[in-house]
């Protein structure tokens, strides 16, 4: 407002700073997620337990009779820790893509929330935060199943939900970014088949990256899921070392980068 206009309207200069990332706004947005989750938690919990059980049974009974060890790690340990990463990936990237697209385009939930005192940054942060908290918790499921299959408990396993949370944060925000740039919901098929599937296979989840050709091995290095797998495996099998600081740094950097990207990309589409 120009000084003249201010004088004409008799209003004082404004100095108030409007808060960014207010906890009350984040909690409000997440309370909606919690209410929705209250309707679906049984199905979610069921699939998060059954899926790793099937993986472990299939790999353990099929593959495991042929291969007792992968590298120097027992098959059940290898697969059990590997499926933590895939559980985290799928429970964060998919909700990031589908929930965002549906709530934004079909249900217009985001329009409703942005008419309330919530800004784009808060909305997206809260959504990503909720998905990653859930991914952190449900990422534990494969480990619990593997314990039943004979995996030895380790104190380091207590770090797994945090690893799942940080990884999930990055992939949830990645999903939001994809939803923001996708023209239709069918476009997600491209991402699922061309990005997510190779990503979860070339990460040392079910077989070691070292078995792969040199070029592919290089690619694995920039795959955040590879770093998640390594970190989960080292934490769960009692092998944490300095290399794990590097893995953690990659995951945190990936999460921060994707978070800002999700806000800028979806923000551009939500506010016109």
């Amino acid at each position, binding site marked *: 407002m120009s000084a003249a206009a201010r004088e004409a*309207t008799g209003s004082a200069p404004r100095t*108030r700073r409007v808060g960014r990332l207010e906890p009350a706004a984040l909690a*409000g947005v997440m309370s909606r997620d919690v209410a929705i989750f209250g309707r679906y938690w049984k199905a979610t919990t069921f699939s998060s337990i059954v899926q790793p059980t099937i993986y472990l049974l299939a790999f353990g009974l099929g593959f495991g009779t042929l291969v007792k060890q992968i590298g120097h790690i027992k098959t059940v340990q290898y697969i059990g820790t590997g499926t933590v990463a895939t559980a985290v990936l799928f429970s964060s990237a998919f909700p990031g893509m589908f929930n965002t697209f549906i709530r934004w385009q079909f249900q*217009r939930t985001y329009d*409703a929330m*942005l*008419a309330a*005192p919530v800004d784009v940054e808060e909305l997206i942060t809260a959504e990503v935060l909720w998905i990653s908290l859930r991914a952190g918790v449900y990422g534990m499921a494969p480990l619990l199943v593997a314990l039943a299959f004979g995996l030895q408990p380790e104190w380091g396993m207590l770090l797994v939900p945090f690893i799942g949370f940080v990884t999930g944060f990055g992939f949830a925000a990645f999903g939001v970014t994809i939803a923001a740039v996708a023209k239709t919901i069918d476009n997600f098929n491209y991402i699922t088949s061309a990005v997510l599937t190779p990503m979860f296979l070339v990460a040392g989840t079910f077989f070691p990256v070292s078995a792969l050709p040199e070029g592919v091995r290089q690619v694995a290095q920039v795959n955040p899921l590879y770093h998640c797998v390594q970190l989960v495996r080292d934490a769960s099998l009692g092998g944490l070392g300095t290399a794990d600081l590097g893995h953690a740094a990659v995951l945190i950097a990936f999460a921060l980068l994707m978070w800002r990207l999700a806000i800028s990309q979806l923000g551009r589409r939500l*506010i016109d």
Partner: protein
Amino acid sequence: MEEHTSETADARVRAHARGSAISIHGVVKRFGEITAVNGLDLEVPAGVCFGLLGPNGAGKSTTMRMLTAQTLADEGRISVLGYELPRESKQSRLEMGVVPQLDNLDVELTCRQILTVFSRLYRVPRAERPAAVKRALELANLLPRADTIVKELSGGMRRRLLVARGLIHGPRLVLLDEPTVGLDPQVRQELWTLIDGLRASGVTVLMSTHYIEEAERLADTVAVMSSGRIIAQGTPADLVRAHAGEQVLEVYGPPERLAEVGALAAEKGWSSRRSGPAVAIMRAETLNGQAPEGVRRPANLEDAFVALTGEEIE
């Protein structure tokens, strides 16, 4: 909380000093080639029910979205409740309620859950939330349906829930975007009662509508919007007098007769329009005996609206 309250009071004082709840100056909004809002000036005084009347595509919804900073103006200045937009829009959104044109309720949640979520978004203190939710449910006549999921509500109930959601925090300004579009007459009547109640309680209401009757019944002041700007403004009675006169003469007859009357009106320079099976001639009181045979009736807002916008009523 203390600080927040005094800041609110401060904003109130400023808005009051200006006498405007909403103030829009020279606002332009383009979407690619299309200019949706084209030099809009609008002052909505505090405490009135203000109707933004215009045909579809006049720029009403774009204007409404700009007031919540969900659409950003390319040019011009907007202030809401004394806050400058878009910079301070979060503050203004805290103190106003919005009822959107399109139903954006969470279909899987119950009325109570939706209202509770929004009570948090609107920063209603924890201890007051259950009472606020109950009050909103009562207002919308949905108390018996509090724990029904939205999917199972009728269209009218959903619309009332949308209104309740926008009122959960006791806002002093409410934006209603086409509040009764697509509703059957009985439900429309219910909503009108609700909106009238808001005005009576001192809440400023800005309502966009393309229903003439809605504007005529509810609005203290009506601004007619066409092609992205305000082309006339006043009380419904003033608008009628200024743009359609006192009386309208309706001449009935077969199509040839109507064509004849239309040509006569054009020749004499009378403002006229086709109105169903008749030709309606405005300002019939000024025709001085030159008028063709017909039925005289008092002019209404529809006449003024058509005279202003050149649009036919659906």
